[in-house]
């Protein structure tokens, strides 16, 4: 069966798939826990009867019972060396059951292992495992392939690539979605559909997991973006175990009542999964007999995906910001980390750009001294699970690009393909193989054309070449190739001409690297802003830029509204609505902005950096150090405490204020000490008790105590009682804070307190930790319990009195 014939069939009528195999085999006596493939070969009558009856009921395609016949699954039963024999024999059985009248699909399913980036198995290993099975199935004589019940998009990609790299037979890919309409690893139906059809699936769809009702919305979502036919194979409702037996709660008639809805949505292949029988298939056949198949989308979809999100581009869609910051050029910290094989900075930049409103992340790791391919693969794997944004693979090396596109669990954007002969020849087929969208750079072997006309010629040629290998204009993004106006005053007009041509004539998306326009000129933001608006008016729909620039993001929001790309100004209102909801000033009374007010407000608002300057000014104006503390700092921090109690402030605000207070106090301290009545700080010893090594909580308590003016002596973790007692004596500390995280170590706190009492020390003990309670504190004779760092400060303040 070739793809053309398969599609002809699908244009003629809705094709009927088979029903359940596993549950039917169990009915025929297959025990739990055996290798189904082996059992079938030992009991061939069972599958002959099952598939014979599906053919009789009206199936056009039966799935060969090779569901678990891959090396990793067969290894569970010690049969990993019989992949070829088992697959070939099973296909032959299916053929014997149904003859040549209907089709036999080679069935690939999850390997039972998890693939990188989500799991631990290498992507290439999975491809090889599937390839071995695919080769055997081809040799066995299957008519087409089905990759089914997939729970992870990356494993589905591995199986799909294995088929594509082995044979030209049609391949259908079907995923399992949960009640949340996502696969187990979090992929939604639209994202799955776009990713898989771009990678070359001839049919996409869903099977198993839920009954037909829950699949309706999933199918609608898929159909909306499907450029290929779609399939459905629901379970006979939800599985439940009663009296030790598994059964499904939906009978054939009820199941079949959903068929009209499926055909109305435009499903092109219908069958049944777990719990369904030939009777279900007979009813599907009956209900679809007169249905006219609905076609799939003719034009391609301009969209990029990650494993969990789709970003659409094109006319009427908001301007897409491609975050430019993951690029080592000019970033010393990032360069060093990449050289050291670390990714902290990459991860930070990714999430920062995501938070600031980027829709896509450009990834460029090209720099001297690193193995670009290795680093790129590592970064792509890492970002695929860290961020939900689709990636733009930015490299000049075909090898690096192919490695990245191969393991990327979505549909990426390739940055970029120029009109240079070698680039076109090498990069276009790579991009097409992995279904990536690509940025077309209007330069060729001769030059960077200075005029729009010159660039247009190059773009026409790139698109023409791309069409030859199956691309459409929706897959291409034209780069306006921005040059600085400081060198050529007409550079902006050239780019605008190219954008206009892309929008009106090529019908592609377009992109610019915005900041290039103003290079070499002062006050660049004005040029950047004006140019962005002009380009948007010409149809620009993507910009490579830094989303941390508020100016850029605000302009984008406004531009989207004015060009009609933001329906009902929804995004604009959501973006700027936030600033309108800025809470009223904490102190409602308008204040006279004198130095005293500024100091008070600095503590209230946690302005650590500003407070020193205000205090210095107050001292210059003649205010006494103690008056600053007593009349401003302390009342302000007390007000903060009040606001915290009323929940108007939460912990970070309280700490910011305490830090501002501490900064101010530290500045004043030398002056205060000069005065006779200088106050001494109260000493607090803190320790995590013996046997316990967790001390993050204790350390945070230490920090807070310091902020509130205590002198903290931190003994660390796993501290024996003898050491604590020794330090108490040495420092004559009036307060000790003990911490323990576990039930097994909290008892040690009592041991320390007892020891202190025996020594006759009058030190006050406060205790805390995840499992510690007030009652426990009382039981062990502690002077107080603190549930968090703030309670600890208050307790210490009470105990020092």
């Amino acid at each position: 069966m070739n793809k053309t014939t398969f599609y002809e069939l699908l244009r003629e009528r809705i094709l009927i798939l088979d029903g359940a195999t596993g549950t039917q085999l169990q009915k025929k006596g297959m025990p739990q826990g055996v290798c189904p493939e082996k059992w079938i070969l030992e009991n061939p009558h069972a599958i002959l009867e099952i598939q014979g009856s599906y053919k009789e009921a009206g199936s056009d395609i039966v799935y060969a019972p090779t569901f678990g016949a891959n090396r990793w699954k067969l290894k569970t039963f010690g049969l990993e060396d019989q992949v070829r024999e088992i697959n070939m024999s099973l296909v032959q059985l299916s053929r014997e059951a149904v003859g040549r009248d209907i089709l036999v699909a080679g069935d690939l399913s999850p390997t039972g292992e998890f693939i990188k980036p989500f799991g631990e198995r290498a992507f290439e290993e999975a491809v090889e495992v599937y390839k071995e099975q695919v080769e055997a199935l081809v040799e066995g004589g299957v008519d087409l392939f089905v990759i089914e019940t997939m729970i992870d998009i990356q494993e589905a990609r591995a199986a799909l690539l294995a088929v594509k790299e082995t044979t030209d037979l049609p391949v259908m890919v079907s995923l399992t979605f949960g009640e949340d309409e996502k696969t187990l690893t979090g992929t939604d139906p639209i994202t799955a559909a776009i990713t898989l059809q771009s990678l070359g699936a001839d049919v996409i769809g869903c099977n198993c997991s839920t009954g037909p009702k829950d699949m309706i919305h999933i199918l609608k979502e898929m159909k909306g973006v499907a450029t290929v036919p779609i399939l459905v194979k629901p379970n006979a409702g939800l599985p439940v175990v009663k009296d030790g037996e598994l059964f499904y709660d939906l009978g054939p008639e009820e199941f079949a009542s959903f068929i009209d809805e499926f055909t109305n949505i435009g499903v092109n292949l219908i069958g049944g999964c777990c719990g369904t029988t030939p009777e279900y298939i007979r009813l599907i056949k009956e209900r679809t007999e007169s249905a006219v198949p609905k076609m799939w989308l003719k034009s391609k979809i301009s969209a990029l995906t990650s494993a969990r999100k789709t970003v659409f581009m094109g006319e009427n869609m908001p301007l897409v910001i491609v975050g430019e910051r993951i690029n080592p050029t000019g970033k010393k910290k990032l360069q060093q980390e990449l050289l050291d094989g670390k990714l902290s900075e990459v991860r930070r930049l990714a999430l920062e750009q995501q938070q600031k409103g980027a829709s896509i992340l450009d990834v460029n790791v090209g720099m001297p001294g690193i193995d670009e391919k290795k680093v790129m693969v590592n970064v792509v794997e890492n970002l695929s699970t860290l961020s939900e944004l689709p990636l733009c693979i930015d490299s000049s090396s075909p090898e690096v690009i192919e490695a990245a596109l191969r393991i990327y669990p979505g549909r990426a954007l390739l940055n970029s393909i120029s009109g240079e002969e070698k680039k076109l020849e090498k990069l276009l087929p790579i991009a097409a193989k992995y279904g990536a969208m690509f940025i077309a750079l209007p330069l060729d072997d001769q030059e960077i054309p200075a005029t729009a006309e010159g660039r247009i010629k190059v773009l026409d040629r790139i698109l023409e070449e791309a069409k030859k290998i199956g691309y459409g204009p929706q897959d291409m993004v034209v780069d306006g190739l921005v040059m600085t106006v400081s060198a050529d005053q007409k550079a902006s007009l050239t780019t605008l001409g190219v954008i206009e041509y892309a929008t009106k004539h090529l019908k592609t998306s377009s992109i610019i690297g915005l900041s290039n326009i103003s290079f070499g000129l002062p006050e660049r933001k004005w040029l950047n802003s004006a140019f962005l608006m002009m380009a948007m008016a010409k149809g620009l729909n993507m910009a490579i830029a830094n989303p941390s620039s508020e100016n850029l993001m605000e302009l984008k929001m406004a531009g989207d509204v004015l060009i009609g790309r933001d329906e009902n100004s929804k995004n604009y209102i959501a973006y700027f609505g936030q600033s309108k909801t800025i809470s009223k000033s904490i102190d409602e009374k308008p204040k006279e902005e004198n130095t005293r007010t500024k100091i008070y407000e600095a503590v209230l608002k946690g302005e650590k950096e500003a407070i020193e300057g205000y205090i210095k000014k107050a001292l210059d104006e003649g205010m006494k150090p103690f008056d600053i503390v007593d009349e401003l700092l302390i009342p302000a921090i007390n007000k903060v405490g009040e606001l915290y109690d009323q929940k108007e402030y939460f912990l970070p605000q309280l700490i910011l204020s305490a830090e501002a207070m501490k900064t101010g106090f530290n500045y004043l301290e030398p002056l205060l000490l000069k005065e006779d009545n200088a106050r001494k700080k109260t000493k607090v010893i803190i320790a995590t008790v013996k046997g316990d090594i967790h001390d993050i909580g204790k350390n945070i308590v230490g920090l807070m105590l310091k902020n509130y003016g205590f002198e903290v002596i931190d003994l660390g973790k796993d501290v024996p009682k003898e050491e604590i007692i020794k330090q108490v004596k040495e420092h004559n500390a009036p307060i000790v804070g003990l911490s323990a995280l576990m039930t097994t170590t909290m008892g040690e706190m009592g041991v320390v307190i007892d020891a202190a009492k025996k020594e006759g020390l009058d030190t006050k003990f406060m205790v805390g930790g995840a499992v510690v309670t007030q009652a426990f504190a009382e039981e062990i004779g502690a002077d107080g319990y603190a549930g968090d760092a703030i309670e600890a400060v208050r307790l210490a303040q009470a105990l020092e009195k």
Partner: protein
Amino acid sequence: MDSAVKYFENIWIEPPMDRILYRLGYKKTKTKLEKDQKEQIEELIWEGVSHCHPKGAFLILPITERTCHSITIGRHLVKSKSLAELLKNSETAALMASTIGDEMIHAIEDEIKKENSVKAVIFDSTASQMADKTVAWVMDFINKTLQKEGKALTSMRYSPGYGDLDLRYQKIFFEELKLEKLGISLTKSYMMTPEKSVTAICGVENRIRREERNE
């Protein structure tokens, strides 16, 4: 379900912003937060998230023997009345583990050293909530897989060190799940490093039985 240990090398966890803020004391209707401060805090949360590397593992083992105060899971006898009670309707049990890795713990320690309290508490809250969500993700994953078999995990889970489940049973998780593969190690006093790592056990029940009981 397959009886081999399953490892998740990179779990995607959407940062539970509301829960992170709530843990820091934020009350939606009461707390007044200026836009700049909110952005600053959210930036720190995202920075914290960039230090988290959520990973997990699980294994389903048969329950081979039981009394009212002990239970044998695989080859391990566990003396715990509350665990025996939790698993009374189960024929198998799921051993689970999760971690957010040590990078975040080092980041918190660094901020504490630098006496940067705001960042330290925000990172700490982010770490705790990401850790909670990671173990919840592992449970959710197992549940979705079990659904196909008409089964589900008990809604409650137990961890060594809680109730009457002795901390020394951490050893079972390390033996069975080979947690060094996730970068988790166990001290002599049965504590896990890095901090914010979680081990837990749940029973696997037939769904209909659970639903009937819930009714």
